[in-house]
């Protein structure tokens, strides 16, 4: 039954480009999909280990920049007096470099900031994002600064001489993003149901207790940060090769906020949460734009929504809906009213 629903959903998602003729709608769906991947990666940290990465856009942007630079090739002084020249590489290799590089930076950030607990991780990540933005803005020789990296090649896959697939058009990109999203989803599901995932949940619930039963807390946290950063880097690489231009604005804080809101509103620590939240907050700007609402007001609405969600749906939409559904099924005669979710249904 449950498997059937999943297959139906997937079939629906895969069929979208077949009947959706409006390319703008497809574009919105692609960008939303990329952000959902990023939000899923954030959920791994925020939802399952309880650590808020407030600079997640740094990993996203690093993935985008590294992948674009490797694909375009560059010539720059990586250290004073050390000129490095790189010929353009195939895009799939470039994307892999972006993912690895983002993962490595996540590892370093985790190593440094998990020496102590509490607010430090949040503060380190938020200022890390700011510094990466400054580097992208000021290291003009490498990143072109505010002039941006242009003409980033789209992904091409295939066997030379036999066939080639170019991800230039929107339907192709839609399928690419969908496949990466499904793979990320399955990866996260495997991970949180594995030994490492149980360790993450254990330390989120009670760190000293998890420690006492032999969970190497710092190691698990660093591992989670690394995987999450690599996944955000993958989303960034997808983004770069889809829109084909990257400038320092990819590091804007507001994108991190979008990811956090997607996770919180959808339901942190649930697999479906970031998807539901991502769909809502990925499509909401388009609705607000259609209503001719100024972008500042839109962000004010986001901020207020975030506060309201914390007050009224502290576990997010998915657990609340699940709890409501469960109560409805258990007491159909009583006519259960929607209300706050039960703690058991939340996880």
């Amino acid at each position, binding site marked *: 039954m449950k498997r059937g629903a999943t297959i139906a959903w997937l079939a629906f998602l895969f069929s979208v480009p077949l009947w959706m003729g409006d390319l703008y709608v497809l574009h919105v769906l692609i960008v939303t999909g990329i952000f959902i991947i990023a939000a899923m990666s954030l959920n791994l940290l925020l939802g399952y280990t309880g650590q808020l990465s407030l600079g997640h856009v740094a990993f996203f942007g690093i993935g985008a920049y590294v992948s674009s630079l490797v694909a375009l090739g560059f010539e720059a002084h990586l250290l004073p007096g050390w000129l490095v020249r790189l010929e353009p590489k195939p895009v799939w290799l470039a994307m892999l470099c972006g993912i690895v590089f983002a993962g490595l930076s996540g590892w370093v950030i985790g190593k440094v900031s998990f020496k102590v607990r509490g607010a430090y991780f949040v503060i380190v990540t938020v200022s890390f994002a700011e*510094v990466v933005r400054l580097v992208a803005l000021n290291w003009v020789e490498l990143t072109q600064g505010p002039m941006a990296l242009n003409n980033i090649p789209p992904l091409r896959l295939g066997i030379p001489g036999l066939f080639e697939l170019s991800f230039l058009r929107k339907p192709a990109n839609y399928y690419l993003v969908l496949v990466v999203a499904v793979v990320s989803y399955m990866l996260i599901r495997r991970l949180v149901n594995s030994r490492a995932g149980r360790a993450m949940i254990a330390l989120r619930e009670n760190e000293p207790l998890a420690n006492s039963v032999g969970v190497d807390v710092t190691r698990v946290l660093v591992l989670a940060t690394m995987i999450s950063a690599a996944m955000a880097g993958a989303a960034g690489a997808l983004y770069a090769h889809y829109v084909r231009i990257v400038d320092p604005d990819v590091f804007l804080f507001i994108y991190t906020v979008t990811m956090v809101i997607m996770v919180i509103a959808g339901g942190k620590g649930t697999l479906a949460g970031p998807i539901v939240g991502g769909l809502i907050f990925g499509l909401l700007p388009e609705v607000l734009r259609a209503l001719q609402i*100024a972008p500042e007001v839109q962000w004010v609405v986001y901020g207020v929504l975030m506060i309201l969600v*914390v007050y009224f749906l502290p576990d997010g939409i998915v657990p609340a809906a699940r709890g409501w559904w469960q109560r409805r099924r258990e007491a159909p005669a009583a006519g259960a009213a929607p209300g706050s979710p039960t703690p058991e249904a939340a996880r």
Partner: protein
Amino acid sequence: MDQLLQHGLNALILGGTYALLGIGLTLIFGIMRVVNFTHGELYSFGAYMMFMWVMFAGVNFFLALVLAVVLGVALGAAIEFLLLRRLRGADIDTTMLVMIGAWIALQNAEQFAWSGVAKSIDNPFPSSPLVLGPVSVSWNRLFVFVVALVLIAGSYALINRTRLGKAMRATFQDRETASLMGVEIGFIHTATFALGSGLAAAAGALLGPVFVVYPTMGDLASLKAFAIVILGGLGSIPGATIGGFILAFMEELGAGYVSSGFRDGMGFLLIILILLVKPTGLFAQKERIG
């Protein structure tokens, strides 16, 4: 050598306002256990209030400064009363999310109200700088420094010499016991948040006329305040004061001798260094949080 002296003087003057920012943030964290992401917004609120009173209403510069700080205190009290009061006892992540939401809402409301264009504020000081041997300083910056020092001294006096300050320190040490001794915790929280917000607004109102005023100016202020507070140890007021000056010196020397583009990255460098070398901060008083 002259250049070094000039950088030193600039850093000293900047350090005063950084210390104000840091003290406000560390007070709020120490007493309320709230990671205050609206701190930078209070800073830009102070600057915008200065802009409004001086450039729109034509109020006297010094009166406008007082008004900006008073309004900052009022806004801080309102945030505490409306948003944080009902979250007392909630875990640190929950309040953090609420503060992030408030940050986004405040910043974009500011952008909507004043547009994204950077604004400058006239000041009544003579435009020729005060020359002291090899170095020079503008009268406006000198004024900023003096007021910052007065406010820092005032905060110390308030915390160490008054009844309210004693209640704050008691709450900092042990909330439950302080409550049992008849300290009104709710009032202390409002007062703390209002005081910290007032200090941030004062820093913004002082620096607004020196630099320009723009909606996202608070983000950097927040980041710097966090760096200062981590440097000094979360919750330590002397740590925040000294941390403010250390960060100002690092930025000024980094901008002067390394690259001015990375001036604002110094705070991050400082955080990383501190976390690597002495994660508890230079002046930690209590156990770590979390």
